[in-house]
């Protein structure tokens, strides 16, 4: 996907530059932005290293497991038909907690594990290539974005001269709340629709 997008961006820029006869500006833009990317990488390295360090402290102290176990009521609300002892429960909780903390590296493996277990545990009369209800709920909640601290955004803002780079945190939390709320309402409406149809 990115291969086409990137190729399309580069070629469009070049052709547009030729059509408008400003290839000098295109060349200058090319040189400037590639240099800028390296500067950005160097300056954001500090905050990224610090934040990853802090998250690793939490990770090794068992913070993810500790928080996941406290997620029980939330899971029971979102997935009413996944029982307490369902094997997919823990990876789902770990995925949600890791996403909230911004630990993408821990979130994705747990999420894939959850999908695998949801696939294995489903009834044999269901089609295996059709998403189950729980898979749909899980993925929609996951995509609604759960991250509490968008740390790379703070790094970019500070690099580009913001007077208050962290000012994005409160608004981001509120907006993430809105998108996740919309996702939860949507999933609940779908469940309601199924319940009505089954009756």
């Amino acid at each position, binding site marked *: *996907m*990115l291969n086409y*997008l*990137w190729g399309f*961006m580069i070629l469009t820029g070049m052709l*547009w*530059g030729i059509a*408008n006869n*400003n290839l000098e*500006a*295109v060349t200058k833009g090319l040189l400037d932005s*590639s240099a*800028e*990317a*390296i500067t950005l*990488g160097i300056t954001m*390295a500090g905050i*990224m*290293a610090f934040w*990853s360090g*802090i*998250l690793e*402290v939490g990770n090794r*102290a068992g913070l993810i497991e*500790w928080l996941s176990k406290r997620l029980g009521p939330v899971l029971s609300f979102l997935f009413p038909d996944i029982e307490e002892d369902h094997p997919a429960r823990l990876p789902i909780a770990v995925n949600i907690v890791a996403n909230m903390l911004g630990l993408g*590296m821990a979130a994705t493996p747990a999420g*894939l594990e959850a*999908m695998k277990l949801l696939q294995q545990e489903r009834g044999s009369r269901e*089609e295996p*290539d059709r*998403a189950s209800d729980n898979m749909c709920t899980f993925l*929609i909640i*996951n*995509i*609604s974005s759960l*991250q*509490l*601290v*968008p740390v*790379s955004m703070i790094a*970019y*803002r500070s690099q*580009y001269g*913001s*007077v208050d780079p*962290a*000012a*994005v*945190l*409160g*608004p981001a*939390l509120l*907006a*993430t709340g*809105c*998108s996740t709320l*919309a*996702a939860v309402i*949507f999933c609940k409406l*779908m469940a309601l629709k199924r319940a009505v149809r089954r009756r």
Partner: protein
Amino acid sequence: MISWISRILVPMIVSYIVGFGMLSRRPVFDDFLAGAKDGLQTVIRIVPTLTGLMTAVGVLRASGFLDALTIWLAVPAAWLHVPSPLIPLTLVRLISNSAATGLVLDIFTRYGPDSFLGMAASIIMSCTETVFYCISIYFGSVHVTKTRYVLPGAMLATAAGIAASIAIAFFIS
């Protein structure tokens, strides 16, 4: 209230995690160092991606294409009540995180990170996910092809996040 959360969130999470680690009797600084090393490796890994995509956006900007795109999109943007420089960002955001980052940094350069557009772009990046990428890796991993209502649901959540971002950015700037 919102700016209060912005101010206390990072100190609160940092002290909570360090406190949690110390109470669990972990060697917190050693753990920190291991994580910080991983963090640096992550940065090294993303710099090539960032270089490629920031350059692509830089080329599009310098050629005048982004300005033309903003003008073409003015009509649908007005209809959707979305500022037109944000439309390419919201579309690319669905496909690629790093390409969207390139567009956000372009918005920061043009309008400043604290402007209405800079703030709206910052919030949009923080409350949305790469919808198509997530759907393809998660369903691809279990060979599910009939995705049912996942795409509409994910798009609805993303639209709600974008609408909230623009409203909040408008309200605070």
